[in-house]
Each structure stands twice: as structure tokens, then as C-alpha cells.
């Protein structure tokens, strides 16, 4: 069985990229909200990290949706998904969540960047000013809904796969949680990497804040991956076969142990643990740690998608 071509394979790597980008978008905006709410307040827009997260969130979700549309066998008919809804279909519910999420996302961006945007307009278009003020009045509500929608989006990509009874490895209740947590950590990593690239201070309070959340998140991720595979093995039957096919010998076994466990989880965790809370962080440290996390999550999405489709119930 070749790792990228086998009979039961339906969804290829573009779907894994989409699952990754949706997670990054949801995670990045969650961290932007947290940074603004707990650390930066009204000056949030000046921080390179918030700027990075606010760039990543919409771009990632657009890129993901673009990939999704191109991957349809009838890309020009994509509007039918927006017109016809089936409430029992996870995909249909997810499309609805994605649409509302984008509205909330832009409303929140308007609240955060109200000051610089209005000063750039400098009173030339009174309509714009009115619109921004109207949106900013409801900032608290918008923020609350945005966080809920982002968490829904992060979990949705997991539910999309776990609804498939065909594949015992994907039809797993832990999968949505695993995707949500790994999506959040990829969003954190994206925010850190983008932030230092946008000349954010690698030793700033934003980095310390995100790193503090990142360590427990990686630990939770490890526990979830363990639970995921322990559950499959203890279920027995085709679930057990699926688990051993995935994490046993062969190409995907290597991806799992070397790529996900070592590069994606152990290395960022080790970097975080060896780095004392008091010591000064450098650009290279933040960039390398974040890149490891991002690579790990991207590999995790591909690994789950491909190995999940290898074993049929």
C-alpha cells in the first residue's frame, strides 16, 4: 500500500491543508482576542503580534475556502452549498459556521483597528466613521460571539471527519477535541512567527503570555493523542487494525513518531521548559519554536487524513 495512493482514499492532501488553515485561523484570532483583552487593551493594534494574528486569521480562512472550492469536482457550482442546506450534514453546518465566523471576524477587526482606520480616513468619508462607531459600540458582544465561532470552527474540522462511520479511525469522539487543541496551538505558533517577522519584540509581554498558555496546551495535546490511539486499540476489531496501521512501521509511522511526536510536540515543549521564565527570548528562539509547532500540526492533519482512510470498517 503506497502512502499517498490506495483504493479507499477519497480525500487527498488539499483537504489536509484546508483543515490546517481553518485551525490556524481559529487559533490566531483566539490569541488576538486574548492578547487584546488581558494584555494590551486599546493599544492592541500597535503590537506586531496582534497585527500578525489579524492578518493570518482572514487570509488563512480565505485560502482554506479557496482550496476547498478548487477541490470540488464542480468548482463553479460551489454556490449550491450556500443555497441548499442539509441540517444533518456536518459539512452543511460547518459552511454556515464559516460564513458567520467571517462576518464576526471582520466586525472584530473593525473594532480593533478603529483608531488607525479612522485617522487614515481623516474624516473624508463620514459613512465609514458612522459604520465603525456603530460596530465598536457592540465590541463586547462581537468578541464573545467571535470566540465561540472560532472554537466551533476549530472543532468542526474534527467533526467533519469523525462523522464518517466508514473509517473506524476517523469515527472517533476524541478527534474534534484533538483538532481544536492542535488548531489553537498552530494559531499561537502562527501568531508568534508572524509577530516576530513583523518586527514584534521577541521578548515582549505578548510572547511570554502566549508561551505560558502554549506549554499546558502541548501537554493537553499529548494526552489527547494518547487517548485517541488508546481508545482505538482498546475498542479492538477494525479500530485496532487502523491504529496499528497508522502508528506502526512504514511511511506514516515515521511521520507520526519523528514528525509529530518529536518535532511537533517534544521539541517545542523542551524549548519552552529549558527556557527559564526570566531569561531573554531571541528572534531565532521564537521563530524556531513556532515553526516546529506549525510543522507538527500540518503533519498531524495529513497523517490523520491519510491513515484514517486506510482502514475501512
Amino acid at each position: 500500500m503506497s502512502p499517498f495512493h490506495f483504493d479507499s482514499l477519497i480525500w487527498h492532501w488539499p483537504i489536509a491543508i484546508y483543515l490546517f488553515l481553518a485551525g490556524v485561523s481559529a487559533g490566531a484570532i483566539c490569541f488576538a482576542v486574548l492578547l487584546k483583552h488581558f494584555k494590551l487593551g486599546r493599544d492592541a493594534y500597535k503590537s506586531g503580534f496582534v497585527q500578525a494574528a489579524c492578518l493570518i486569521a482572514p487570509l488563512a480562512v480565505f485560502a482554506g475556502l479557496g482550496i476547498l472550492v478548487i477541490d470540488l469536482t464542480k468548482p463553479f457550482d460551489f454556490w449550491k452549498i450556500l443555497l441548499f442546506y442539509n441540517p444533518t450534514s456536518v459539512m452543511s453546518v460547518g459552511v454556515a459556521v464559516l460564513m458567520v465566523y467571517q462576518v464576526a471576524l471582520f466586525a472584530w477587526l473593525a473594532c480593533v483597528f478603529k483608531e488607525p482606520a479612522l485617522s487614515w480616513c481623516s474624516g473624508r468619508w463620514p459613512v465609514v466613521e458612522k459604520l465603525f462607531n456603530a460596530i465598536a459600540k457592540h465590541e463586547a458582544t462581537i468578541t464573545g460571539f467571535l470566540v465561540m465561532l472560532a472554537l466551533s470552527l476549530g472543532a468542526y474540522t474534527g467533526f467533519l471527519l469523525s462523522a464518517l462511520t466508514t473509517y473506524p479511525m476517523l469515527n472517533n469522539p476524541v478527534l474534534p477535541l484533538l483538532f481544536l487543541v492542535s488548531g489553537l496551538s498552530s494559531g499561537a505558533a502562527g501568531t508568534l512567527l508572524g509577530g516576530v517577522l513583523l518586527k514584534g519584540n521577541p521578548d515582549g509581554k505578548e510572547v511570554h503570555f502566549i508561551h505560558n498558555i502554549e506549554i499546558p496546551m502541548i501537554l493537553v495535546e499529548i494526552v489527547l493523542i494518547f487517548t485517541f490511539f488508546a481508545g482505538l486499540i482498546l475498542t479492538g476489531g477494525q479500530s485496532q487494525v487502523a491504529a496499528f496501521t497508522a502508528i506502526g512501521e512504514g511511511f506514516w509511522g515515521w511521520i507520526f513518531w519523528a514528525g509529530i511526536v518529536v518535532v511537533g510536540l517534544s521539541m517545542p515543549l523542551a524549548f519552552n521548559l529549558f527556557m527559564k521564565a526570566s531569561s531573554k527570548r531571541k528572534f531565532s528562539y521564537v521563530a524556531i519554536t513556532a515553526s516546529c509547532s506549525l510543522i507538527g500540526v500540518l503533519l498531524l492533519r495529513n497523517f490523520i487524513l491519510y491513515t484514517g482512510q486506510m482502514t475501512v470498517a
Partner: protein
Amino acid sequence: MSNSRRLFLKGACAAAVGASGFTIAMARSTTSGDVEPACNYALVHDETKCIGCDACSIACREVNQVPEGVSRLEIEREGPFGEYPNQHFRFTRKSCQHCDDTPCVKVCPTGAAYKDPKTGIVSVDEWKCVGCQYCIAACPYQIRFINPVTKAADKCDFCKETRLKEGQLPACVTACPTKALTFGDITDPQSQVVQVLKSTPSYRSKTDLGTRPKVFRIASQSGEIKL
């Protein structure tokens, strides 16, 4: 501030409870099969009579104009079992099982995959299908495919749009030289399908998944015994 936050959380929790209640209610109503079809077509494949001649799959391709490279119906061959001159093969049918509880219909985002309320036949609305391939992934029998001509999901529909429309039996049933296939309405106690099912022990594929397939099989005795 803390008051409005509490109000917001209350509202959010109420919304979450409402949404999950709605989802569960929807799931219940679809699994209990709220619309009882006027008739419910089923097919019996007698593996003891099947000789693996492929007359059925050739007839299917011709009648339904299935393009090369994909197929709605395949006969899978296992064997040979035993030594010359007592050799046996086992033939099993690979085609849509027309599940009563349909995984493909549940996951289709546009409703292009649907169960025909008049006949119980699982069908595809070519126009509504966008080709997301969710139904192909959801089918535990792995029999759906993308039609290279229409770019829509495609599969066996018991010849609903061709032979059945003309009041005739599906192409595979008519073509079978050994009369291994029986087609008919299982809600009608007088139908030939019901007679065959009542007189002969049959099995269905992957019943543990709860899909209630409507392709019944009469097991070939010449297969090997596996644990």
C-alpha cells in the same frame, strides 16, 4: 461589566443547549425514518447460482451509459478454492446497497443524495451535486464514484431512470442467465423477493453499522471458512 458578561454567558449557554437539542431531535427524526416509502425495493443476489459471467455488469453499463473506467456494478471473484477437478469460486456483488438508513444522504451538504420517497431507492440529483465527495467517503460499502462525464457523484439506482421508468426490471436482473437476481417490493408480501427471502437464509453486508442495506445475499457454500 461583569453583569453583562454573565448575561452573555447565559445567552450563549442557552443557545448551545438549544442547538444541541435541535441536532439530537433532527438525528432522531431521520433515523426513525419519518417518511415510510409507498414501496421499498430490494434485491437478492443468490451467490449459489451466480457463475461470475459479468452479464449483469455489462448490461448495467450499456443501459445506464456508465463511462469506461468507472462502474455501478462489479462482481468480485474469490478463489479458486479446492483442487482440480473440484474447484470453486465465490462471487459477490459490489454495488449500492440502497440502505434504509443512509450514511450518504445524511452527510450530503446540498441534499443531492436523497432517498426517493416513492420507491425507497437511494438516488443522486446530478444538478445539485457539487462534487465534495463527502458521500463517497461516508459510504461504508465504497461503491460511490465521480462520474467523469457529469462530474457528479454516481452509483447504482436500480435502473430507476432507465428500465424501471419503462415498467421493466433492472438491467442486471433481466440479463442474468442463471436467475441469480431477484428484484421487487419488500412491503408486498406476495412479491417474489419476499418469497425468496422467506424460503432461503440470507445475509447482508456490514449490518453492524446499522445501515439496514436492501441488497440481500444468499451465501455461497463453496467459499473458504475464515475466522
